[in-house]
């Protein structure tokens, strides 16, 4: 069924279709309308689930951890400081290998306070052990959230579905709402291998020692480092799983494809923009215009799956290009953009490494003008062509009251 509604409502509808059993949430802008919608649907009998109005995000994820450990599907959503407040639980859920799904409606992190969009919140949690997917439009919010439950439950790793605050959360766009029967066909009932039950008691997440210890049968049991290796290893394997899940989704819903990275006009591109979320979509317009007006052969590579980082996809897409320009809405302060660092590191082993540049843009909702993208991208392509003036430090685009220092020009 085609509807026109907000990104938050698309996410809420996906959670309803996925038949989440327990939802725990705490209000924070711009996530609030998503969880409000879920509580309304439950109150009005449209959705059969438990809604727990907790007193904090730390508790929101704790409720989900308890529920998922005890055998039911759980969901929460948050933004910015809410995500950081639950950070301890974010790490805990991954270490406990709980198949949770959480929507992160991306917002800048205080101080100073900002309610507007950037990616610093979820990027700051990239090393927590969650799968992170960045989506670009309302249909992707809907479809990816449904796929996220299947992925989380197949690999026993929690999944963050990240979408841009306001750009997607509060704007209205048409999208298709899948039929319940088809979602049921796609998403099997919840299953967790170590469900808490008196019939088969387990002591979950107990204290581990640095070295292996024997169990009651005398067999060596994995210890902390082995358990953490398994998380890393199975996270990398989840790239293939995500591809397979997307194929299964395509068969039932007749849409999807390119779940890991999405290329746009990449076939003949000499230069490639790398970006995540709505920014990648905005670049489609920009490069259409650049190709038309200046003849520069430029394409866009949207990174959808950010963790696990799809190194092979990056190499395949970018090796041999003249230039790669990474635009991003977050950074590792005192170093460079997180995505830039990751892309650069992925390309290091390549023989034909492109020239790679980094732009930081749109922090705290600073307006991202299409003209600005157009101008900075053309300048970056020219620098790459001439291979001059390339710096390894990020270029801050759109500063208004401060001038970048010489090293960053």
């Amino acid at each position, binding site marked *: 069924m085609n509807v026109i509604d907000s990104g938050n409502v698309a996410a809420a509808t996906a959670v309803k279709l996925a038949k989440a*059993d327990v939802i725990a949430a705490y209000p924070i802008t711009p996530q609030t309308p998503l969880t409000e919608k879920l509580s309304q649907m439950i109150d009005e009998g449209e959705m059969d689930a*438990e809604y*727990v109005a907790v007193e904090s995000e*730390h508790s929101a994820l*704790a*409720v989900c*951890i*308890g529920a998922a450990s005890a055998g039911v599907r759980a969901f929460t959503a948050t933004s910015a400081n809410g995500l950081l407040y639950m950070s301890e639980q974010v790490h805990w859920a991954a270490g406990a290998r709980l198949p949770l799904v959480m929507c992160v409606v991306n917002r800048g992190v205080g101080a100073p306070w900002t309610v507007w969009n950037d990616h610093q919140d979820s990027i700051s949690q990239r090393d927590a052990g969650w799968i992170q997917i960045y989506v670009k439009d309302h249909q992707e919010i809907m479809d990816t959230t449904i796929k996220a439950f299947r992925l989380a439950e197949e690999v026993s790793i929690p999944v963050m579905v990240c979408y841009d605050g306001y750009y997607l959360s509060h704007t209205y766009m048409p999208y298709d709402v899948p039929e319940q029967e088809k979602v049921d066909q796609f998403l099997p009932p919840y299953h967790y291998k170590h469900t808490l039950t008196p019939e088969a008691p387990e*002591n979950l997440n107990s*204290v581990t020692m640095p070295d292996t210890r024997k169990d009651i049968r005398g067999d060596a049991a994995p210890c902390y480092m082995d358990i953490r290796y398994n998380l890393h290893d199975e996270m990398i394997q989840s790239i293939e799983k995500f591809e397979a899940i997307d194929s299964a989704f395509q068969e039932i819903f007749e849409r999807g494809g390119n779940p890991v990275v999405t290329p746009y006009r990449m076939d003949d591109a000499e230069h490639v923009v790398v970006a995540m979320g709505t920014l990648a979509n905005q670049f489609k317009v920009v490069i259409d215009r650049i190709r038309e007006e200046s003849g520069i052969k430029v394409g866009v590579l949207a990174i959808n799956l950010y963790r696990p980082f799809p190194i092979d996809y990056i190499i395949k897409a970018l090796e041999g290009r003249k230039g790669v320009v990474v635009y991003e809405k977050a950074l590792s302060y005192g170093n460079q953009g997180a995505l830039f660092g990751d892309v650069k590191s992925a390309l290091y082993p390549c023989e034909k490494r492109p020239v790679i540049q980094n732009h930081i843009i749109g922090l705290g909702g600073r307006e991202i003008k299409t003209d600005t993208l157009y101008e900075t991208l053309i300048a970056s392509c020219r620098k790459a062509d001439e291979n001059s003036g390339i710096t390894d430090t990020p270029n801050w685009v759109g500063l208004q009251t401060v001038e970048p220092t010489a090293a960053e020009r």
Partner: protein
Amino acid sequence: MSTTEAIKKTTVVKLDEEEYTHPGNRACTGCTLNTLYRVGLKALGRDCIFAVPPSCLTVVQGLYPISSSQMPILNVTFASTAAAATGVRAAMKRLGKDTQVVAWAGDGGTADIGLQALSAAIERVEDFIYICYDNEAYMNTGVQRSSTTPRGVLTNNTQHGKVEQKKDVPSIVAAHNPAYVATCSASYPLDFHDKLLKAKQIKGFKYIHIHTPCPPGWGVEDRMAIAVGKAAVDSGLYDLYEIAHGKMRLTGPSEKLLRKKKMPPVTEYFEYQGRFKALEPEYIDALQNEVDQRWAGYREKFL
């Protein structure tokens, strides 16, 4: 089990012979939490799921992959016990199971870092039992003050004695008006056992706070751990009571104290323990005075 059966006092002879913990665990010698856990599980039975934050209990329950407990246990982060238990309870509701959910935390995990989640769970009228074993300091990290450490106590970060008073957590909980609040002493484990039997039959939020002597943390000889807890109750310093339907009544050994003409002085309690060495005699006198007045009030109210 009918209500009248539950109210009958359990004796050692009648205690469930089945054990729910394995013999041999990592508790310190003389640990009274160990007694509480063993006896408490006999009251709770097998149909339970536990949420446990970092505390001595985490250690007692065993290091991976060995568990000294036969119960399903969810170890959770320090601040999140009541919220995690809420999640388990929500799952039981969804699955249509009556399995009793039990949160079991220490005083730091309850009175300090866990207080926010605890308060919220009571306010939401969550249906589970929350047990706080109060050994009156952060014992698992090596004896640092908590908000339930009494005034005057020497800990590793109150080296001249704690200046502030003990936080009264059962009263804070009671102010939320939950279904059931009780105080217990590890030295009277059967009283704890029977209060658990009662709590199991009540729907809504049940809170049990237990005075839990800790020999290494309190500077008490292992063999005196039970005696010191008894001295606290018998001198009227630590009251055992329950609050159901908003009505408070003294219970078990404390109820018996009401009819005693003379209670032993509180000094007996302090003398057992190294941690009170810095306590000024004037404060002990003031405390004795406070206990006498409180009990005079109780006698007026309950006799």
